[in-house]
């Protein structure tokens, strides 16, 4: 789990560091491949830059999938560690970011599978469905973000997150890849290891469900 004694980040270390690498001046896919080539030769500095470039998207994807920040932090780490170990086998047939999403997909599904096994018989997730909770009960479980997070993220995001959480992992993932991360059908199919037709079908039904749940928000726009 995430260590509580994490030091405060310095502003200098937050800055993108791509400009300090000779021959790498922008953040495009071609520059990714340059960094990957160097990292494959054991250049840990280049790999550190790749982590800096992609960590925000990977963390966001995982966080939106599992809705737990601390676990998302750990799983994002796992993605980059696994990517480093598999880097010698990366052949640049796909974009590096797509390859990372593929690892992310596997890491999240492994985590979900383990979580299901560990929680088997201990907790029924259906009890968190607010529609099933007696309105007269003295305490009700918190189903969404904390009040501070709600203010920070905005009401719409909170509603979308809550609606996404009600989808199956496959439907949630395809919506996040398509509508949030902006991947093409072909890339999503590669990441999720299925056909383009399956991606189209999942996206269609996932959007239908979300639009039903977010009807008021969607119609008001």
């Amino acid at each position, binding site marked *: 789990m995430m260590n509580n004694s994490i030091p405060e980040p310095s502003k200098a270390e937050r800055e993108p560091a791509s400009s300090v690498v000779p021959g790498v001046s922008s953040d495009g896919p071609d520059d990714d491949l340059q960094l990957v080539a160097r990292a494959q030769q054991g250049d840990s500095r280049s790999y550190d830059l790749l982590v800096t470039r992609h960590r925000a998207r990977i963390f966001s994807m995982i966080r939106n999938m599992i809705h737990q920040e601390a676990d998302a*932090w750990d799983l994002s780490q796992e993605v980059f560690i696994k990517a480093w170990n598999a880097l010698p086998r990366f052949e640049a047939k796909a974009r590096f970011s797509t390859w990372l999403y593929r690892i992310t997909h596997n890491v999240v599904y492994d985590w979900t599978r383990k979580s299901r096994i560990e929680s088997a018989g201990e907790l029924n997730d259906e009890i968190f469905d607010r529609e099933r909770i007696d309105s007269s009960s003295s305490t009700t479980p918190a189903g969404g973000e904390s009040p501070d997070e709600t203010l920070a993220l905005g009401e*719409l995001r909170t509603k979308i997150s809550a609606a996404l959480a009600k989808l199956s992992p496959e439907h949630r993932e395809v919506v996040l890849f398509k*509508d949030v991360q902006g991947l093409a059908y072909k890339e999503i199919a590669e990441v999720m290891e299925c056909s383009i037709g399956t991606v189209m079908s999942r996206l269609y039904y996932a959007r239908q469900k979300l639009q039903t749940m977010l009807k008021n928000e969607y119609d008001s726009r």
Partner: protein
Amino acid sequence: MNTTPDETTLARWLEDELEGDELAAIEAWVSGHPEHLAERERVRKWRAMISGAVPAAEEPPYPDFFNSRVAQAIKESTPQPAVATKTRAGWIKFLMPAAACAGMMLTFWLGTKTHSGPVEVDVTGAPKAIPVEPLVYTPEKGVEAECFSSSKASATVIVLNGVDAIPDETDFSGSTTMRGLREKDKTAAIQMDNEEGAIR
């Protein structure tokens, strides 16, 4: 484009994935199908709503620490160079028999240079062994101890005089000594069996 595009191409057009000639061809076909244009607008509106509310990229908390943790994990998981170790191990393995032979020869040579006869040691001044009576120490005042030892019985009995009587309610069941006694005491074992039988 006069023919109807396939489902995948149409879906990719709806998602704004097409470019170049492919896009131009389907745009020409769609101009005669306003329902598809309306559908594309709905998809664009939906995507704008979702992508506007849910950020595609969010820095993880403590991003610098995030990177250092990844670097540390990679460093720990990277195996040490095995080639150098293997070479060194092979070198040592090769020299081991030679070193053993040299050691044996050196020991033999040193043996020939030292005294050839038995070593005589003068023990006349050494202190003689004195039999010592066992000292029994009792930390509590008013308590005297007597010690009886029998080598034939292989037993030593210490009698304490002046010790307060042990209350009957004292529970020794958890002590190691009592557990050992009970295991050796056949009568106690029988009683225990009877008790267990009564319980059953």
